[in-house]
């Protein structure tokens, strides 16, 4: 059973206060697996050589939602976990991951999730990962996720990562390899405040004919926080990719955005766009003419931008 604090963390990262009875899940708390439920279509087993789990989704599995949340409520926990997802051919599943840290102590609490996805032919995977931190302690909340994705022929992988509040430091590495006809859509939404720092490096390799990728990054940096984005799309075949980085900068924040595109095939079509700017003054004025004050208007603009 989860206490209120734990249940709030779960809600912040997965939109549910308790794990639904009819779903498959694996809950990890303070560095240990504490609750698990599987069925004949989705198997979850502990790794034998290192901390972490293997999640095996049988071919043709449809309409399953798999929850693999991680919550940390003790100060000073340093948790590194290796999770491998094997998605069978023609499967169609949603995976809700995420990590919530409540740190009320003075020691650093840290979770590094190393996730690998092996997505079979014609499968579809939607992966949602939310990061959240709270707690009145001075100890830092640190999350350094590594995600590796291998997308098989004509498979589709849609990944959404959200980090809106309370994570002091994060360094994210994402690597994806796409085979023929594979499609990869990554949406990254990030807000940093205070002295937080966030780095996101990404390498997408489009190796198969007609592979396509769309990388969308939306971020807001407030106070003295710092962000660095380095998405790279590499076209090694006839393929299409679009990289779009959009950031709102406020206060004393700093943002670097370095979208890189490379083509090793004359039929690769790769586009990038990047923009960093303040909140548009006309947007603020427009909302103020609806009777909102400047702070309320700013909030609405940021909420919409990160939606």
């Amino acid at each position, binding site marked *: 059973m989860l206490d209120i604090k734990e249940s709030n963390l779960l809600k912040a990262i997965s939109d549910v206060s308790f794990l639904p009875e009819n779903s498959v899940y694996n809950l990890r708390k303070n560095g240990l697996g504490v609750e698990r439920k599987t069925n004949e279509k989705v198997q979850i087993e502990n790794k034998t050589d290192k901390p972490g789990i293997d999640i095996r989704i049988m071919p043709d599995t449809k309409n399953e939602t798999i929850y693999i949340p991680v919550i940390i409520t003790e100060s000073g926990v340093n948790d590194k976990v290796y999770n491998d997802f094997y998605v069978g051919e023609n499967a169609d599943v949603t995976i809700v991951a995420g990590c919530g840290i409540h740190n009320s102590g003075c020691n650093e609490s840290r979770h590094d999730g190393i996730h690998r996805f092996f997505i079979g032919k014609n499968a579809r995977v939607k992966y949602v990962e939310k990061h959240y931190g709270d707690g009145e302690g001075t100890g830092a909340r640190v999350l350094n996720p590594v995600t590796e994705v291998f997308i098989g022929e004509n498979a589709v992988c849609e990944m959404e990562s959200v980090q809106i509040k309370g994570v002091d430091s994060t360094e994210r590495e994402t690597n994806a390899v796409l085979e023929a006809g594979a499609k990869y859509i990554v949406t990254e939404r990030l807000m940093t405040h205070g002295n937080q720092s966030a780095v996101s490096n990404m390498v997408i390799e489009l190796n198969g004919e007609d592979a396509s990728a769309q990388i969308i990054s939306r971020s807001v940096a407030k106070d003295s926080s710092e962000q660095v984005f380095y998405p790279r799309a590499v076209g090694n075949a006839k393929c299409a990719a679009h990289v779009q980085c959009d950031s709102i900068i406020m206060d004393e924040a700093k943002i670097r955005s370095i979208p890189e595109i490379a083509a090793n095939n004359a039929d690769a079509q790769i586009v990038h766009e990047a923009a960093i700017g303040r909140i548009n003054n006309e*947007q603020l004025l*427009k909302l103020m*003419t*609806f*009777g909102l*004050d400047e702070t309320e208007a700013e909030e609405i603009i940021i909420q*919409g931008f*990160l939606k």
Partner: protein
Amino acid sequence: MLELKNVGFTVKNEADGKNLEIIEDVSFTLEDGKFLVITGPNGGGKSTLARLIMGIEKPTKGQILYNGTDITNMSIDERAKLGIGYAFQQPPRFKGLTVRRLLSLAHGSELPEDECCSYLTRVGLCSMDYLNREVDSSLSGGEVKRIEIASLMARDLGLAIYDEPEAGIDLWSFQMLVKSFRMLSSEKNESVIIISHQERIMQLADEVIVIADGKIRTQGAKDEILPTLLGEFDRKCDLRGEKGAEGNA
């Protein structure tokens, strides 16, 4: 009732450091429920005057009163709460904000779907196609402009100011718009100010003010002003809209 008393607005020209008078000694009164059209050549100060009334700019001289209250130094949102609204000539776009959310923000509370639809229909948009679309660069200039007008119609206002509502709007939608403004003036007891170059919009007015070089050149009842205006300004201002609607700053 809106009253402008000797309103002036001066800015410093950054190039030579000299003062530039954008609005000079403008005074007029708009009674409740009246429909006023402000017209005149491009660059004459019409939009600035609208922005002064909304509080986006502050006058450097004079006084603005609304229903007897001095609003000269009030902020934009305070004026909005008193019931003043302004549809921008070039409305901003919002990434991630849907048409429905924008209309609800304008209204001040969540708007039911059927009400949203009725406002969109009034500006010639097929509502079901638009409710959940974002007000971002995927919309054309004319679409954003019509949504802007709909957002003002969704508010409960005492004074609505529309800045060149016809700009960027095609002929079919323009007819729809004229019909909506006609309905607005007869149904609601809202005072309306429309900045426009279009004769068909001027025809709706109770009063017309002509602004040129930051000053009121002529003002009076529509029937008095319009006949002379049409002859005098036709070539300069394209009052009949033959050259198509053009924006000005």
